[in-house]
Each structure stands twice: as C-alpha cells, then as structure tokens.
C-alpha cells in the first residue's frame, strides 16, 4: 500500500508534465529540451529554465504570464551567468546561508511538492542546491559591489514616505504610520531600489561585452496560454 508520502517516478513525471502543461497550456509537449541560450560558451537549456521556474528560484517573476515568465527566468539566468563568469571566481558562501536558502525553499513549496518536482525532473537535491547557490553567489556579488557605495539621504526617505507610502495608503483608504516608525524599512527599500538600478546598469554593460546567443525556437514550440 502506498504511504501518503510515497511517490513513483512515473507519477512524478506526470506531475512535472502537468507543470509543463500549466506553463505551456497544452498536454505534455513534444519538446523535451533544447538550447535556450549560450553565455560565453556556457549552454543554458530549457530544462534549466524550467527547473529554476518550478522551484521558484526567481520568485520576483512568478506574477508574469507563463511563457513570458519562462523567458524572464531565462533572462535572469543569463544575467547571473554573465556576472558570475566576470566576478564570481572568488566568492565563498557560508554554509549557514546555503542552509537557510534551502530551508526557505522547502518551507515555501512544501516537502511533498519539492519531492515530486525532484522526481519528475530526475534531479537530486544537490542539483537544485547548485542552482540556489548560483543565485546566492550572484546576489552576494551585487551586494559586495554596490551596497557600500549606496547611501540614502533623509530627503530621499522623506520623499519616499510622502510620495509612495502616504499616497498609497490614502489611495487604499488605510491609515498611515508615522515616518519615524518606518525609517528602517524605508531606508532598506530605497537602498534596495538603488542597488538594483545600479546593478542593472552594470549588468547591461557586462552583457554588451559578453557573447550571448539566444535560441528562440522553443518559444514557438510552446503554445502560449490564453490570457
């Protein structure tokens, strides 16, 4: 008798196929895998993109439409590989950080879902861990490079408070908290936005120097989900 947590690979593959169907809007597509991009000679496959998407490595893209989301995830992977190839050789992550990221993923998706997806893709946990580690290294590089050079002035915080927080709260008919109570949060938000903006500019520059090739056939071969 199957225990609730016992899964066969066959049904796990069906789960993955269902995941693919959710993305593709069609039953198990003919396309299993292909080259999606090549970054300085390093290949990125459609399965790489799908794994990153299935395990929510780039949660910021989850709100996008399915095929658009896959392409956005691909773009994030390309950015990541470009940056790591340029600057990632010397980054060493503490084990505690990796453990925390893995725990976060398990909490977010749930052990059963993680198990099913691993089985469906035929992956080991360390395959997902490698993808997680790469994204952590990428974030660390950005932090190291930009966080020290970014400052947030009181004026900027005041502007943010008035134009974004207060205006937003008023629009939603909610009460506002005093600025003093939100200073840390506002500063962190502005700092994050500035770092992201500077990082985006830097990455654009790196991408211009890199040899990046895309393959687009998979976009045509995956039917778009009806909006």
């Amino acid at each position: 008798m199957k225990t609730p947590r016992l899964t066969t690979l066959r049904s796990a593959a069906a789960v993955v196929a269902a995941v693919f169907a959710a993305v593709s809007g069609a039953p198990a597509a003919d396309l299993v895998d292909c080259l999606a991009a090549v970054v300085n000679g390093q290949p990125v496959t459609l399965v790489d993109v799908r794994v990153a998407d299935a395990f929510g490595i780039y949660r910021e893209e989850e709100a996008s439409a399915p095929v658009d989301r896959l392409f956005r995830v691909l773009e994030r992977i390309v950015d990541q590989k470009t940056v790591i190839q340029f600057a990632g050789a010397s980054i060493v992550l503490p084990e505690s950080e990796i453990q925390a990221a893995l725990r976060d993923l398990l909490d977010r998706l749930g052990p059963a879902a993680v198990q099913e997806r691993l089985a469906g893709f035929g992956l080991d946990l360390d395959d997902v861990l490698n993808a997680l580690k790469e994204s952590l290294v990428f974030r660390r590089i950005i932090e190291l490079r930009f966080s020290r050079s970014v400052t947030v002035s009181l004026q900027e915080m005041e502007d943010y408070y008035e134009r974004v927080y207060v205006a937003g709260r008023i629009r939603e008919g909610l009460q506002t908290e005093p600025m003093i109570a939100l200073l840390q949060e506002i500063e962190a938000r502005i700092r994050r936005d500035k770092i992201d903006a500077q990082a985006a500019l830097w990455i654009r520059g790196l991408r211009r120097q890199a040899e990046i090739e895309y393959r687009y056939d998979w976009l045509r071969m995956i039917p778009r989900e009806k909006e």
Partner: protein
Amino acid sequence: MGAKRAAALGLAVVLGSAQALLGADLATVQVVVGSVEVQVDGRPAEPDIRELVPVRSGETFSYKRVTNAVKEIYRSGLFADIQVLRAGTDPVDLTFRLVRKVFVRRLDVVGDEAISPKRILSRVAALKPGGEFSEEKGGRAVEEARAALEREGFFAADVRLLTDRDPATNTVDVRFDVRSSRRFEIRRIAFVPKDGRVREESLKQMMESREGRAFVPSRFEADVERIKAFYVARGYRRAEVAVADKVFDPEERRVYLTVRVALNERIEIAIRGAKVPAGIVAPLWEERIYEDWGLSEGEARIQAYLRRRGYLFALVRSSIERTDGLVRVIHDVDAGPRATISRLSFVGADYFGEEGLKRELGLASAFSLFGVIDGDRLYALPREIELIYRSRGFSDPRVTFNMIREGSKVQVVFSIEEGPQQTIEAVQILGATLFSVETLRRVVRSRPGGPYFAADVQRDIEELETFYQNEGIRGTVIAVRVEEPRPNAFLLRFDIDEGQQLRVGRILFSGNRVTRRRTIERELRIREGDRARRNLILESKRRLENLGIFSEVKVEEVVVGPGLANLVVGVREGELNYGGVGVGLETKNAPKTFAVWDNVVRLRGTAEYIRTNMFGTAAQLSLVGQLSLKETRAVVSWEQPYLFGVPLETVLTGWVEREERTSYGFERRGISLTSVKPLSQAVMVLGTVRWDRTVLFDLEISESEVDREHVPYATTSLSTSFVWDRRDDSANPTRGRFLSGAVDWAFPLFKAESDYLKLFVKTQQIVPILADFSLALTGRLGLGMGRMPIHERFFGGGSNSFRGCGFEEMGPKDVSSGLPLGGKALILGNFEFRFPLLRSIPNLFGAAFFDAGHVWAKRKEVNLFGLETALGIGVRYRTPLGPVRFDLAWNLDAPEREGKPLAFITIGNVF
C-alpha cells in the same frame, strides 16, 4: 583536508538535513527510453555523430539526463543548436535534432558604388571569414555595418543581410545589401572660439573635408586629428581640438559643422648643454601631468639617452619658466666626458663568483672593443643583479656601483651585499595516492637545501598540475602551505587533492569533408582506451596543424561517463587551391650607372599553382613556371608528409629548364626524389636521388670530354645534406649560427656518364655588438673530384658570393674566350659589419664588408695565399623577405679595374 573534500562534507550536512525533512522514498518503477534517433541538419546522423549522444535505448528517462546530454553535445563544438523531442510516455522515444555550426566563407558589401567594402568590413567584428555564423551574429553584424556606413558618410542606411549557404561545406557567403542611404553635403565648417592665433582659412586648407563636399565622419575625425597634430608640432602640446557640433538639415541634406579649438599654452622644451632630441621628452607634456613628475621623467629619459651614447656621468637639472601663454620646460644637461666601460667587476658576489655572475648577466662574451656594455644597461644592472639574487633565495640583496675613470675608459665596480639566503628546509607532498611521493618530488623544482623563491613555488604548482593532466587525471587541485619554522628556513607543504583518472572512449572526427580519416588518424598520438594524457592530446593537435591543410583544429574532451571521455577532433579544412603570378623587369646586360635606357629591358614572369590536400592525403601538387630573357623553367612537384607509411616528408620533382650562363647555356630535364627529416627544431637532414639530362649550348669555352656542345650529359646522383640553423631569423638574422653540409655522389647508371663526388659546406655566424650593431661572418667550402661537367663545377663571383667581380667571373678562365670555367675547389669568406644609419628609419642599415675567395680548377691547386679580396660598403633596407642591398665593392687584386667599384642591387643576404 582538501578544499574540495571540505566543501563536499558541508554539502552532505546540508543535504542530509534537507533529505530528512523530505523523508520520502521513491518506488522503483522507472520510465524507460525507447528508441533514440539522431538527426543532423534534418538527415539521419552518421555513426560518429550518433556516438556523441550519451543517451541509450533502455536507460531510465529523466529530464536531467536529457539536459546533461544536450550540454555535452553542445560542448563538442560541432553544433549550433540542439533540440530533443519525445514521443510516447513509457517508453519514451527521443529524437535529437542537431544543427551543425555554419561558418562564413566570404563577406561582401553591395550597393552604392561609392561604398568601399573593405572599409566597411574592417569595422564589422561580429562576422569574419572563417568565423561562425548565426542569426544573432548576423543581426549584430548588420548593426556594425550600419555604423560603419555612417562613418563613411552613408547615413540611415537600409542594410539587409543576404546569405548563400553551401550545405556541402557548411559554409555561407554573406552579403550586406545596402539598399539606400542618405548623404549630406557640408554647408559650413566653423571654428570656435575665435582666437587670433587660429587662422580659419589655413585650417580649412589642410582639411580633406570641404564645404560643398559630402560629409564623411571618419574623414572629418582625421581632419580634427590633423589640426591637433599641426598645433602640437608648433608647441601647443596641450591643444584641444574636437568636434563641437554637427547640425543636420534632413530636408536640404546639409550639415553644419563646428570645431572647437582651444590652443591653451604653448609648451617649449629646451634641452641645453647637449645634443638631445626634444622628441624624447616632448610627448610627456601633451597631457595634463604633474609637473614635478614630468620634469623627473624627462631627466630620466635624457640621462638614459646620453648614457647609451657613452656619457656615463651625465647630470640633468630641470626647471619650468612661465611667461604670457608660454611654458618653457628647461633641461640643463651636463653631459660630462664620454667614456667606454672597459671593465666590470663584482665585489661580494660570494654565491655566484664573479665569472658566474657575469655569465648570469650575459656579459661573458661581449666584445670589449666597443665597451662591455652601454651606459643605459649599466644603470639598470643593479636591479638585474638584485632580481637574479632573489631568484636564488636572497630576500634582500643590495647592489651599488662605483666608477673609476682612466682617461676615456671607466672601470665599474659593483658592490654586492648578498644578505642571508632563504633556503628550503623540507618539502612535503601530502594527499597523493596515485603516484609515489618520490615521483612527484622529481616534478617540482623546490628541493631541500635549495633556495626558496616564491615564484618557483608557484611554478611548482603549475608543474604538478601539468603532470597530473599529462597522466590523464582531471580535476586535481593543488595548494601549498609555506611555513618558516626557523629564520630563513622554509618548509613547503604541497596539499594535493587528486582528481579522477580519465580514459579515452571513442575518438570522433568532424569537419573533414575532403581529408581522409586515415590522414587525420595517423597524426594522433593517443588511441581509444588510452589514458587521456594532455600532452599527447596537445601533440596530436600540433601535428594536425603542421599538416598545413586545416585552418583550425580543435580537440575537445566530452565526458560521457565516470572516468570516460570521448575525444572529438574537429577540423576546418583550408583553401585547396592557390595561385600566384609575379611580373618583373630585367635587363639583358648589366646596367652601367644610369644608362639603363641603353639596355634591352624585358618582362620577367613567374606563375605558380598549388593544389593542397590532394585526394585527402595532405599531399600537395605544385606547378611553377618562370620565363625571362636568361632562363625558362617549368617545375612540377608532388609533396607528401609520409613515404610508405613512414613520417618522412618527401618531394618528387620533375623539371624542364633552359638557362644562359656566362660561359655556356644549358637545357636540362630531370627528376628527383628528396626526403626531409627534422631531427630537432634546429637540425634537419635531407636525402635526394636524382636523374637529369643536360645539353649544353653556346659553349664559350674549349670543348672537352665532359664539356660538349649539343651532346647530352646524363647524371644519376645520390646526395645527402644536413642543416643546423640556430639563427633567430633566416631572412633577417641578427644573431646565431648556421651550418650546412652536402655531399653529392654522381655515378654511372642508366646510361649516365656522371662520375664525380662533390662536397659543399656553408657556415655563418652573426654576432650582435651592442644594440643594432652586428658582425656577420660567412664561410663556404666546395670540393669536387671526378669528371665534373661545367654545369656541376663550382663558380664564384657576384652579389651573393664574392663582390669583387661579376657573376661567376671568379677563378680559372678559358684560354681562348677568357670566360670562366668554374672549378673543383671553392673557398669563400665574407665578413660584414652592419650598423644602423638613421634612428628615424629603424630598418635602414649601413654595412662595411670584406670578401675573400677563389675558385681553383683542381683541388691540389688550392692556395690560401692566392685568395682574391675585395672591400666594400653598402646600404641595406630590411624587408620581411630579407634586406634589399646596394653594395659597392672594390677588388683589391684587380689593378686593371683602376679603382672602379662594382655595384650590386640584390634582395637577400650574402649567402
């Protein structure tokens, strides 16, 4: 613990805890791969390519396995795109669709006739002939072409990329089709700000861009640079000249240009007290610099300049004066007396000894006639000596020197404080299991008792890494720990984290459309099943490149399983056909000074066709024809790298020729077989078997048993020769030695009359003397015995042997005609001193030479006191093919010449 092991342990801890959270167990029912089909460019793949796909029928299907397969296939470097399609759910039938990489064969630009394809294509980097083609690169190339067209004045160009693919060779011809563009006329060129020193009309005169002409941005940029150079040459070294504005009128198709000219202050450089060109200091002041730095850098350059010329005691004091709009940089030089460094001595060089240190510095063999070293090197020597000591473990050597003047000569005494030597107390090698510690100790340079030098330790790491690679082991990580248990005594610990032994699975070939597989295989030094030794893989690549038939060779390792990798040998075949035509002029008679127009001047031509990689065997066929007044020649040769399976480069040559020489003319046809075997980089041996048939005509000497007009003389011969060439450059040698020897034994066979033995030895030594000066000594010895017909005898005279007489005029003469007979003995010596003529023309040299030599009819007549001698001077201009020489020579033993020199113009060295 190795770093890799520590990381793996950490990962295991993380995974272990995560796995505990998951806690699931997987049942053993697996989805299986059914059939695996592989297609290349839409057609079923050949077995070699099929082997590249590491997924097999019957294996467990997983996306991970498939994606790893896609990545491995891509890494083979053969395919631009890979897709994997499936059919069925269990089993899953897979189709791998591979698209081969396509390469650019030709690039062209078509459209407006005014467009220069060469200029446009020089700025297109995304696509190059021989490079890979892809849609992405094509898109980038179009953008680059558009930008290049705009630089050439073709704005808003509509450029389409047209491609013409050749499936047989996987190449594509690419054309940039420029369908339309806009040109703008320069309406006005203005200069701002208005400055009385700037004369607009003069500036416009020096520009190629003109009002009323088409606007070409690249030309305009060059004009701006020209204006800046104009002002810099006039002392405005910090002049700023830049394009200030470009206003386009699209309707009228006109453009208004504004150039900003800011002259800033004029900078004058005065070097007083010595003749030193200001040009060595002037570039320092073209940018805004710290003035103190500029002055001290200028002083250093002036001192170095003077020291090179023997002013060892030169002192320079510098200052800056400012007046209205003018900055004067003044260097006051006290050059001091000129001196030659006659002797160097080293005090305190206990470790090397004085002579040993001189050898380390390369000073042991210098000629003292021109000074042991020049002054510039003298002042650099302390640093050189310190570096040598550091490499021997002396961490803090101190070197100073004093000069002792003796008239115009200077003795230099170096005082060396060696300081303590850091030595290696012990070398430990830890973590190695695949090789013994003794084996690894032999690889590293660091030895107990030897000097400790950090750079050597780094080199040791690299040597160990290379050792493991060459033993077929990949992924070895080597770290070193350095401890100093006692002062100046070091303990080195090499921690080796050994990788994995890799063996060669299959060896696959790709890209060889013409070349036979066997031709590639025989160059490989590694076989299937061997350990993946890196040095053998690289040697195989080198041998393939040396065949000369491939424009690119890649050997990639594609891991297909634990400890197993396929080798993919990818080649790109080069052009198969080469043709060349050469045209020149020659005169029938030797030109007499400027009376060339009295001579018969005719065309001289050469045509050549070469077909490489004949029948895919790396053999080469060449056809050469030469036609001129004095000689006609047709040569066909077949060259192949192997002879009956033995790696021996062999050339089979057949020829028909006709030539007019001084005393005779001849028609000859023959065939020869030559094999060449390089013994090392510098030494080569050759062996030749030859048969030829010669008929003499216009014989201007008395006939004899072997010298007969119109009667054929057949020769069969065996010759062997060796060449030892240690010169730095065979066309323009500046140092080194050359030695060659040839023995030619002609014997009667196949109705041949030949019966002689010839020996010929050539040697050359080039000795550099200071910078750019050299002495070249060349010697030749020829000895023959037996019945040698005139066309096999030795001759001397002319621009490439003895410059005291004309071509072949040296030696015995025919009694009746007075024309040269040649001889059975030849001795020639050439001594030439070369020196630079003008510093501003680095390839121009002067020469003074002395030639001596003679030709004797018989060996027993050789008399070293009977040599003819000649003195001369000349000018050489160095070219990649050798120097163009103009020589004037005076024969010291020909009073009948009444002191008139002989003039020669030649390409190539005297040899």
